[in-house]
């Protein structure tokens, strides 16, 4: 019996210790509840600035995009989520398909940021960009030898490509864009050729691939631009040295433009604090937040009229980006995944 009492006690203690912060309390603190797939520690600074400016407290839970979607969906009408943020357009699309977003008019925020970055139906909006680019060895590859994603399929790269696994949403979205531009059959031929050209089975993340080139294990890789910038801006001499051994470029500059993906947000359909949600999303477009994305996470701000200080990132810009609406990536995500499975891209 003691055991039972103890069990009840411990469970109560557990509940009390981890209880959720109260909804807007008696002191009328305004809050916004954020479900974010962004896991960058620098975001804390952005939320702090938002709170200071508006007096609205930010409650944050961050996790993988698909898991956040499942949690919001299961909680349904009672979900405390106000804002849902993901780092992949396909996830934004999936959340929209699951009916988790409320439509809103983002035109005031989105003027001048490129129509490809806003959901045509107004369910979500992008506030920062990342491009999936190509990097090659300074010593073993001549500039101009490779200029497009399609070039990676050329037999000349046999045994020379390092790339991360196909579980990465970034690889899935890149292949989804190729499905849209080239059709499923040709996209599969491309993926098959890249697999045939791999120097090693996929392992690690994007930074591991740059290390692979620096060490001479391979000559070319596909990566998100900010990983390279992160290494250049790092205090670690080994990371700097590895980054210095490669040249990064934006592919398809004369054709479709380089593939871009986004950090985006939408207001939850059952948001208890829609006004505050809207205020937070608007804040992501403020000068301060846009500058923070460029300087702290090396992302490309969607607004071009904000000045920021990050020479590494500045040296990469400008570039021609793919004009397709990023919401299309979500429609083709499963096709991309199946192609990866068929060609054995681990």
């Amino acid at each position: 019996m003691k055991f039972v009492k103890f069990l009840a006690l411990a469970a109560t203690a557990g509940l009390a210790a981890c209880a959720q912060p109260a909804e807007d309390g008696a002191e009328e603190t305004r809050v916004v509840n954020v479900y974010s797939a962004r896991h960058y520690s620098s975001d804390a600074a952005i939320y702090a600035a938002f709170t200071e400016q508006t007096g609205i407290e930010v409650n944050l839970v961050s996790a993988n995009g698909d898991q956040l979607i499942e949690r919001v969906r299961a909680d349904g009408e009672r979900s405390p989520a106000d804002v849902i943020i993901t780092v992949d357009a396909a996830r934004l699309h999936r959340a929209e398909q699951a009916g988790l977003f409320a439509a809103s008019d983002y035109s005031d925020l989105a003027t001048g940021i490129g129509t490809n970055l806003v959901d045509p139906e107004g369910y979500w909006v992008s506030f920062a960009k990342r491009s999936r680019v190509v990097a090659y060895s300074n010593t073993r590859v001549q500039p101009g030898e490779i200029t497009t994603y399609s070039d990676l399929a050329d037999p000349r790269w046999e045994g020379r490509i390092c790339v991360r696994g196909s579980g990465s949403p970034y690889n899935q979205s890149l292949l989804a864009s190729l499905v849209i531009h080239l059709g499923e059959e040709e996209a599969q031929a491309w993926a098959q050729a890249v697999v045939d050209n791999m120097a090693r089975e996929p392992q690690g993340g994007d930074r591991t691939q740059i290390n692979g080139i620096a060490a001479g294990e391979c000559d070319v890789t596909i990566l998100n631009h900010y990983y390279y910038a992160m290494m250049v801006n790092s205090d670690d001499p080994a990371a700097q040295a590895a980054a210095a051994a490669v040249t990064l470029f934006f592919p398809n500059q004369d054709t479709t433009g380089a593939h871009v993906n986004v950090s985006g947000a939408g207001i939850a359909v059952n948001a208890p604090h829609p006004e505050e949600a809207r205020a937070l999303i608007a804040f992501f477009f403020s000068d301060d937040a846009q500058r923070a994305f460029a300087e702290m996470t090396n992302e490309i701000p969607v607004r071009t009229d904000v000045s920021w200080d990050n020479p590494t990132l500045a040296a990469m810009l400008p570039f021609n980006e793919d004009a397709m609406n990023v919401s299309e990536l979500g429609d083709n995500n499963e096709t991309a995944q199946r192609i990866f499975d068929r060609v054995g891209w681990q």
Partner: protein
Amino acid sequence: MDKAGSPSRLPGQTSGLAVLAALVCAAPVLAVAWIALTRDSGDYLQHLAQTRLPVYLSTSALVALVAGGGAGLIGTALGWLIARTEFWGRRTLSWVLILPLAVPAYVAAYAWLDLSQAGGPLDAFTGGAFPTIRGGGGAGMMFALVLYPYVYLLARDTFASQSVDAYNAARTLGAGPLTAFWRTSLPMARPAVAAGLALVAMESLADYGTVSHLGAPTLSIGLIRAWSGAGSLVDAARLSLVLVFIAIVVFGLERAQRSRARSVNGSGRHKPAPRLYLRGGTALAALLVCLTPLALGMIIPLGRLVWLALHTETATGLAAASFHSLTLAGITALLAAALGLATAYALRSRTAIATLATRAAGLGYAVPGAVAAVGVIAILSGIQALVDPSWRAMTGEVFPIVLTGTGAALVFAYLSRFAAAAISPAETALARITPSLDGAARTLGATRRRRVWHIHWPLIAAGVTSAGLLVFVEVLKELPATMILRPFNYDTLAIIAHNFASDERLGEAALPSLLIPLVALLPMIFVARYLSRQDR
């Protein structure tokens, strides 16, 4: 109340509660099975069977074999050395050797890939001779190095409490110490080793972070991809049934080991083994054998991270995260130890329902944390939906309390995920109390309470505290379920470490990764002290 000849049990009520608790722990996995079997899905699984499924299965087998083989070897050897010999440093090592368990396997994997990859320090130092730690073999080795304490803990306790009669008899008959160990001590320790191995195998199959970073496509990878790529939770749930099936087989094999060993030590006589005193070269060798897995599983990977940390800023919020980690792990560990003990007693009643409930509770160990979390969410949202109609009738609104995202949801998920880690050691410990032991005590007029406190508890204390400790450390490391179910603004050390590590920012990941074993040290020292007091 006691039937003559039957082993001591808990009173019926408590036994019933234990069964109920076990069923609650089993519920999330059952919910996932329900999703898998009742909801419709497309042709994704068919596609998978035609493409990647064979690779997923063979890689899973490789990972489990390497992990189990490695952990079995290391854990048994260390367990014997610590329990049956005496050498300089043994007393400290006896609990320090548990510490690698507190290193998340993915942290070891990130560090080892960084060290051994092309152009990494080891590669440069050996002129390319050092192989890159990757693939199924590499992932299996990572699991062996951080999970061997499962085997070690159980093997050590068993070796320590083994009667030496058989060993001595073998020696008398002319067997050398090694042969005697091989023919008597080891077979007697087999149930404990098997229990440890079952946990290692299931844990490595349920892992996602390590295998995805090292490029070892196991079933867990396929399952998470089915969810994230194809967006089908149903397909993911169906794939997790395969893991559940494997768990049933693995735990079944383990049970078979256990029942085969039942006859051992039937006399109930407990004659502590005299320690073999090692000196000089042998003592040094023993020390080295103990230090090697410690170095490979903990000192080298964490040392690498610390070295990288010298070039980076420190992460913030670590004090709060440590507190969160400790709170969750502490509460869950206490509950789990109680659960383990209660279900182990309930099991002694040999009723079908007790057996079934306990075995089902253990299955949570087989599924990835993300899937267990889905089960928890499904149950909690089901409860919410159940309350909704009557609440709406009264207030016109839906039931306002959100059950997901509370500490209770997290503890629920942990218990369902790690019940096996609590039940298994408790059951192993309780197996030592034979019916004849109870019978003797009863003959001498001991009441049930006296029997439990003066005879059972001293014999099972080590096992039960081990159970609590294992769950404590598991919760400290747990990532996927914590991420998805946690309350607002509630980071744990594992989450902070993973957020950095997933971006390959290993320097920033260093401090939180280091704090996990450091936080684990506190209860470990406490438990070590408690147990050595018991030893006297």
